[in-house]
């Protein structure tokens, strides 16, 4: 096909997946002692004078450097508020700039320059707040020395340092030189969250005006002198190799400059992209089929089902959670044989389908290479391109552009590497390779397909005593270019997600995974394993509730009864959401409600859905209530936007999203077959944002996992039939 994630780069960092696993978060303490806590990196080095690399004071203003990718979540805009909060600088005087793509600007928690997993604000806050607090401390000490007063009596406000008692004040800029000569404090103290006056307010994002008048430039908009354009053809199915090609039909087209043959692709380089595209349509390459040329979705689904029914998967290790206990689960299931529940769930491959299709502009010459693209993984992409071109990394300059959608797809550098190899064939000239929508959609790096056999043992009181999940699918870490080295005893990361991070009372778990890999490249898709496992857990909870004649909300409240702070926090969001949705109020005939809850990335989120079943197999969404407890809320409007966006993203997957294979080839190619909801299909969506945590939480993914199970639970309420397959069209439900 085209180069897949074979260009792995050296791993020094924490495994990417470990930042997701089981809801744990490596910054701050996880309450379950079984999970080993890696030491957080040192952010401010007290042995080195100066403000550090992330701050650049210039006159009366400040420029912040960030390694966070702007892909619609607005995080870069938020960073200025952190600096304003800590340094008392007016927001108008603070600019945010993309940091150079150099190792010293790597994310210290991942040892790389990349953005994913709802980490943007959390990591940005964890790095920037101490840096700014340190600078504040140094400015206070500089003023204190100047005025022979106590540093603690000097405050920073409106760009001034003021000694309150005497009224002396100086602009920050007047103290910079002295302050920069000082050593940072051992323990910088960011402003307590309760004292925030800038953060936590709604502020307009700085990137939005350019997104209303055509000025915002994405990777696909790159302009370079002498730019050529490339369109590509990929082989049928993954791993296909180019066997033969008659170039003449393409070469005959005016404007075509070169045909480039790659192992799994053919590229046409031309004066315009349209010409290149037309030329690819004239070519009829012959391909040698790849090893999985017979892949068909029906057979694949049968393999996944068989694997989970066999129950011979590899168990997840007890070290990740003390409740993992196969023997206890087996005993509990046997003891509860008359009141245990079992369900087989099936999930398809899903495409990310960002609206800006993958593309990259590359120029290769004798000295090195330059690449311009929308990306979430700046350092890994640069290293992979360098490796593909046989260059030292320092010889590749990467210019990062805001993404027209990322969702995890733009962590992968498959398109970038291919574009570099195409440009290498036309040395000295910049070549912009754009994947057509069809090529983009069929290029792989999907959310894995999976099957889950879920068993839940219920005790005499109706509450679960044990949960067993046998899962099957392929592993993202075997394909993703940004996955770290898997730990030897972890069968699979995505499959471990969302089960153990919930605060429900569930004393014993057995999680097992069987690898069934048919060669489909996989990637991290917004919310990753939660997109499947939360669906299973939340619909099974409703089955358990019904089996005891319990209301789904009341049943969950019992599962969350307890004194622990996490349980109380989850319960608070659940109650607030349910109250807002009027849970328990009478509904019109034919209307039903469903609820679902999720905890991950230090956030709590959920949905209530009201729908009407209009005829057998057909329903209409009446209203959606979405809620999130985002811990410390940096910008409530931006959190609302992510909650709304995650809801719609998850809704697409719930209703009709699927990627299918026939004879090894992806069937879906465009938005006719891979449907996305339109405005007309959305019911009113109510958005609840609260901030009740001990630190910032993730918000980018947290709107996704619960919309599908909330709909399924409403359908279950309507019909008493579990919905165990997504998309809903496959389970016999249409809107």
């Amino acid at each position, binding site marked *: 096909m085209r180069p897949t994630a074979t260009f792995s780069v050296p791993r020094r960092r924490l495994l990417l997946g470990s930042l997701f696993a089981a809801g744990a978060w490596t910054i701050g303490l996880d309450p379950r002692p079984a999970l080993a806590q890696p030491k957080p990196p040192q952010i401010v080095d007290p042995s080195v004078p100066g403000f550090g690399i992330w701050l650049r004071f210039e006159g009366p203003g400040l420029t912040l450097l960030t390694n966070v990718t702007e*892909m*619609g979540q*607005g995080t870069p805009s938020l960073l200025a508020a952190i600096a304003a909060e800590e340094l008392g600088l007016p927001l108008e005087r603070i600019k945010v700039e993309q940091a150079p793509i150099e190792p010293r600007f790597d994310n210290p928690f991942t040892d790389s320059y990349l953005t994913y997993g709802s980490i943007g604000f959390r990591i940005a806050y964890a790095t920037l707040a101490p840096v700014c607090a340190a600078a504040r401390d140094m400015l206070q000490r500089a003023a204190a020395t100047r005025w022979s007063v106590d540093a603690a009596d000097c405050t920073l406000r409106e760009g001034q340092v003021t000694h309150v008692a005497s009224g002396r004040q100086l602009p920050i800029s007047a103290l910079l030189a002295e302050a920069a000569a000082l050593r940072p404090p051992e323990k910088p103290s960011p402003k307590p969250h309760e004292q925030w006056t800038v953060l936590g307010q709604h502020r*307009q*994002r700085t*990137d*939005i005006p*350019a*997104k*209303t*008048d*055509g*000025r*915002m430039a*994405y990777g*696909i*908009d790159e*302009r370079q002198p002498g730019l050529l354009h490339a369109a590509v053809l990929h082989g049928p199915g993954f791993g296909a190799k180019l066997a033969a090609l008659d170039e003449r039909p393409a070469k005959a087209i*005016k*404007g075509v400059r070169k045909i480039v043959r790659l192992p799994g692709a053919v590229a046409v380089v031309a*004066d*315009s*992209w*349209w*010409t290149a*595209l*037309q030329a690819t349509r004239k070519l009829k390459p012959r391909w040698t089929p790849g090893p999985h040329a017979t892949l068909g979705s029906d057979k694949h689904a049968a393999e996944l089902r068989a694997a989970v029914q066999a129950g011979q998967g590899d168990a997840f290790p007890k070290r990740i959670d003390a409740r993992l206990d196969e023997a206890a689960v087996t005993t509990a299931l046997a003891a509860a044989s008359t009141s245990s529940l079992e369900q087989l769930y099936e999930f398809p491959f899903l495409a990310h*389908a*960002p*609206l*800006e*299709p993958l593309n990259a502009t590359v120029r290769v010459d004798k000295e090195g290479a330059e690449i311009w693209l929308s990306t979430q993984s700046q350092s890994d992409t640069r290293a992979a391109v360098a490796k593909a071109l046989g260059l030292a990394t320092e010889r590749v300059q990467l210019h990062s552009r*805001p*993404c*027209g*959608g*990322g*969702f995890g797809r733009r962590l992968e550098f498959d398109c970038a590497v291919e574009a570099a190899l195409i440009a290498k064939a036309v040395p000295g000239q910049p070549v912009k390779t*754009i994947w*057509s*929508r069809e090529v983009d959609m069929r290029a792989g790096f999907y959310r894995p397909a999976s099957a889950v056999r879920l068993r839940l043992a219920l005790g005499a009181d109706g509450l679960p005593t044990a949960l067993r999940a046998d899962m099957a699918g392929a592993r993202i870490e075997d394909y993703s270019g940004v996955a770290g080295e898997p730990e030897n005893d972890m069968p699979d990361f995505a499959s471990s997600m969302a089960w153990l991070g919930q605060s429900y009372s569930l004393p014993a778990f057995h999680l097992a995974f069987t690898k069934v890999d048919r060669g489909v490249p996989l990637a991290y898709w917004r919310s990753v394993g939660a997109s499947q496992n939360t669906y299973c857990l939340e619909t099974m909870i409703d089955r358990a509730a019904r089996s005891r004649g319990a209301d789904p909300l009341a049943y969950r409240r019992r599962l969350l009864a307890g004194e622990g702070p996490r349980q109380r926090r989850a319960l608070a969001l659940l109650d607030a959401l349910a109250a807002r949705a009027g849970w328990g109020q009478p509904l019109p005939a034919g209307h039903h409600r469903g609820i679902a809850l999720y905890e991950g990335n230090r956030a709590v989120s959920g949905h209530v859905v009201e729908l009407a079943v209009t005829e057998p197999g057909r329903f209409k969404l009446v209203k959606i209530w979405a809620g999130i407890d985002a811990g410390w809320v940096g910008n409530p409007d*931006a959190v609302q*936007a992510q909650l*709304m*966006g995650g*809801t*719609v*993203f998850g*809704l697409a997957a719930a209703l009709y999203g699927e990627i299918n294979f026939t004879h090894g080839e992806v069937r879906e190619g*465009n*938005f*006719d077959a891979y449907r*996305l*909801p*339109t*405005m*007309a299909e*959305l019911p*009113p*969506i109510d958005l609840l944002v609260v901030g009740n945590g001990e630190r910032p939480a993730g918000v980018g993914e947290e709107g996704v996992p619960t919309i599908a199970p909330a709909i399924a639970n409403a359908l279950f309420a309507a019909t008493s039939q579990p919905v165990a397959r997504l998309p809903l069209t496959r389970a016999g439900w249409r809107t």
Partner: protein
Amino acid sequence: MQLNVNDRPQKVAPSDPEMPLLWVLREQLNLTGTKYGCGAGICGACTVHVDGAPLRSCVTPAAALAGRRITTIEGLAAASPKHGVALQQAWIEHQVPQCGYCQSGMLMAAAGLLAATPQPTDEQIDAAITNLCRCGTYPRVKAAIKRAAGMTA
């Protein structure tokens, strides 16, 4: 051939009679605000105005548009100082865009709607705005259209 784009005559050279207006705009006139999302007229990211009415430029040959008045997102404010400008202000007020890639098309579709129906109902907005947004900004798009309609009432 000549095209009238944003009130200026522009000399363009479509590479073949089928070359869509989208690629002429983006590559020959450096007007990259109009976007490629699907190439099949489905997503609407390529929406421009032709004689004031929305049109999907990825499936319309440039050659067919000689003598017509073409407006892109870059020219919206000038061509539509009432509705276009109100929409752009409402878009900022309501913080509509997330990644923003679909928003040029959304705004052009919205401006076309308000030109024809200055006070649209929800149903009329739903029927006119069929553009795809992967980030899920639809509720804010709708609110901003109604706000702009209110501002220009």
